[in-house]
């Protein structure tokens, strides 16, 4: 059983390491803001499936979301680009 437990935790290392970046989403303001942020990406014609949230920054009157966008086609995975969208809280 101990070996199974160690193996499971080993497999989970990258997932566990990714948990801290999701901590800000405990805040309901940020959770609601992210949908507006996603709509902004959509209005730029991006495929949301190619984007991944990297950072959330709370400023005085707005919340900024930084996304990593990586376009994928049949043969290519294009270089990463960082896109920041800011949602005004007012």
């Amino acid at each position: 059983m101990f070996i199974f437990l160690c193996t499971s935790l080993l497999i989970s290392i990258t997932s566990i390491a990714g948990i801290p970046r999701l901590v800000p989403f405990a805040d309901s303001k940020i959770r609601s803001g992210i949908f507006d942020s996603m709509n902004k990406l959509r209005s730029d014609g991006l495929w949301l499936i190619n984007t991944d949230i990297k950072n959330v920054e709370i400023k005085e009157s707005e919340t900024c979301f930084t996304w990593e966008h990586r376009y994928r086609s049949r043969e290519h995975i294009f270089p990463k680009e960082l896109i920041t969208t800011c949602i005004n809280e007012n």
Partner: protein
Amino acid sequence: MKINLKHISWALIILGIYLRLTDLTFPDLTTDEAQAAFGTSPAWTPLGMMILRGAQGIFGHELIVIRMVSALFGIAFLPLFYYLCRLYSDKRISLFAVAIAAIFPTHILFSRLSYLSIQLCLAWTLTLYFFLRARKEPSAKWLSMLYISSVVATMMKTQGLLLPVFLVVGMLIENLRKADRNKSIEIVLTLIISLIPVFFYILSHPGVFATVFQYGGNMYGVSEPGNRIFDLVITWWRFLSIFLIAIAFSLSAYRKLNWPFWITIGTGILTGIVLGPSHEYYATYLVLFALPISISLLQIKPIYRNLSVGALTVITILILAPQSLLRTPWMPVHYQEDPYWNTHTEAVNEVLKDEEVITVLGGPGHHIRWYLDPKVLVGDNMEKPYKTDYVLVLRDSDLAKSLGKIVYEDERVSIAVLP
């Protein structure tokens, strides 16, 4: 030579393998298949997609490569199913059950397409097999195999976690009634520990929750259960026809199989009901009914059994014969019609050869990124003016004409150059 059940079984198994390898490159890639091929679905655990990416990395980014992965998983299911059946029955029944599984229409169909349901079907069957072995003899060997197969199932596709969870629940209910519970604790713990990676994966990947929230209450859920079950049966009937009658008939063998077997089938059915009854690929898991169907058919007179098997074989051929030999109204739509993208991509890409980025209107699916060379922006939610010189419009030539000068037009696609 007298033809007996063994000969018939082997003939059906060979037919089933042949049908799984047929028409792999014929239909266009669908949007869900493309998500799997790109390895980008935020809602799925990664193993199924990693296998597809790995195959493409080795053999190239071709339709035959990603669909061959499914075909191989579909074929590999057959010997595994034999060993599973042997835990319940003798060699004769087991071989006959494999023959019925070999010609089971939804299992053949999704062995030809890359939806990952065929991979999960194999992983679930493997989990069930090792669960039954460990339950009989909870040695380190069988517990290890159970652990590995359960982790594989949960990481193959997110819904894969359902079977280990239900097996744990089943074990707990079963053991409430038993005095000696120690033997089962090891199995329960093994399954629970095997769920740790998927638990952390879901926790750290917001795409899984986002997808559940996006579709929860409409496609995902248990609302209007009557309609959901009705839709499910209609979908099954379209792809299984009289196999559905055989399934109903096979319920008479209920007592010959134990609860883990029925829990596995039930998990497959529940997945269909809860995650979208009109999604055909959830019918893949019904292949496990091949065992109760075989047990039931072997209880009737040989003449009726042979007639039934003949009818099931004819139906499978009418649904899934190679489209170059036969096209019938019972076939899935994408085998009845000529594909579009597999035959037009070259011409469309020739028009777009100097473009780095284009805008596409008309609800493009993910497969459009597979077929088109330039980067694609989804124009449906964009504000005008569009940022690209070329706009490709799906199924609306009038819209394309209103945008600019038409440089390409066929029955599906119009391309306009903006002024």
